[in-house]
């Protein structure tokens, strides 16, 4: 397994339901990645801003780490865990 840092602003389609946010699709450059599973979620703070973190799996099996900044409503793709 190999972690690759990305730190990219991305577009995300997400469901907001029952006080929870769940990413469904990630648009990265010209590529659309369907989220097959949100494998883990956790929260942290940056100053007064709450940041939601998600580990999500896509159909290729790769696992991405996404973050959602509640203050400026920004999604970022910060890392991908690759096989090999």
């Amino acid at each position, binding site marked *: *397994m190999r*972690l690759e840092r990305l730190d990219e602003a991305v577009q995300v389609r997400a469901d907001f339901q029952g006080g929870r946010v769940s990413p469904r699709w990630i648009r990265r450059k010209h590529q659309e990645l369907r989220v097959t599973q949100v494998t*883990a979620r*956790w929260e942290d703070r940056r*100053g007064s801003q709450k940041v939601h*973190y998600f*580990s999500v799996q896509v159909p290729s099996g790769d696992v991405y780490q996404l973050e959602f900044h509640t203050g400026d409503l920004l999604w970022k793709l910060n890392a991908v865990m690759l096989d090999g």
Partner: protein
Amino acid sequence: MSATGPAPRTPRVILHLDLDAFFASVEQLRDPRLRGKPVIVGNGVIASCSYEARARGCYAGQPLSEARRTCPGVVILDGSEAVYRAFAERTFALCADLSPSMETFLDEAFLDLTGSERLHGDLLERAARLKEHIRAQVGLPVTVGLGPNRMLAKIASKSVKPDGLRWIRPGDVGTVLPGLPVDRLPGVGRRVGAELGKLGVRTVGDLRAFPVETLVQMFGAPGRALHDRCRGRDTRPVALREVPLSVSRETAFAEPVTDPRNLEGMLYYLLERAVRHARGLHLAARTVRVWIDHTEAGRMAAARTLPAPSDQDAVLYDRARRILCRLFVRREAVRRVGVALSGFVADAAGQSDLFAGGADAGRERLYRSLDRVRSRFGHSAVVAGPSVRFLGALEQDRNGFVLRTPSLTK
């Protein structure tokens, strides 16, 4: 007032919760491809390993080079302190629903449930629900032990790891304790265990044969605690905030270090983290201990005691740096450095406000302001002293520099 005397005391019930193979479990949760595989988190040495890795001979503290030989194909990850902290906080927030009296550590918690049966019903069932709730909400397996005191609650949980649940009731103590290896008792570390081994003491039952006077003669005051604990007695309370015996921080370098400025910079950074933690508990330290691990010659360590306790970075660093200068005299690289504060005195702020001069009081206000800034914006918001040299050289996140081995509370 009743004429029949004091009401019978409610029996104590302590719950011990342990996050199983914590760091490795978080990694297996985040990446489903790791589930069922041997996974190690650590750098230099194993900080945490999955049960699959343990089954193949890996253990915490084992050098990674040895782990690779023991367990070919093992997945090794650096890990992330910030992520683990977030998962621990979420888990402990769910535990707080059971009792306001809780003491937490990095991957375990004690809760005092005494007298809460009327609120919670059967405590074993309530503990089982807590386990399910944590599994559903956080996604992690935990082991829970219940007992009439902290020691027995922890012995209960240790005996059913992973993902287990057990209650040692007061009536079970006579059957459960005697057969246990003596090193399961708190206070029996390597040194005490070796001393007892020389006397042929292997189990808790063997230790019971020794009168309290003999144990006190052998080990001083802790001998009395041993005498109590081998009989299942442990009166330590569950405190919201534990006054630790020591606060330490250490890390391994990615590449062995020969430049003393890098050593001093890392020592300052680690000490600053330790002092900030102590200040958060309103403690001032009297003793500073520093250690370095050479690549060949092994560990060198020394400690010094200050004339008066202090909770100020500059005062404690001055002492720590002098110790480091005396230790770092070999022409050999250093792969690990650490610092520990001990000899704590409580409520230092109030005392030094009364007696400190203007400069001291000003410095104290400065450190407390820095603590507030860092609490709000993260430790990386302010980088100070000799650790400034790592800016740009080491990666940073909200919790400070991303070190090879996270400088976690011990």
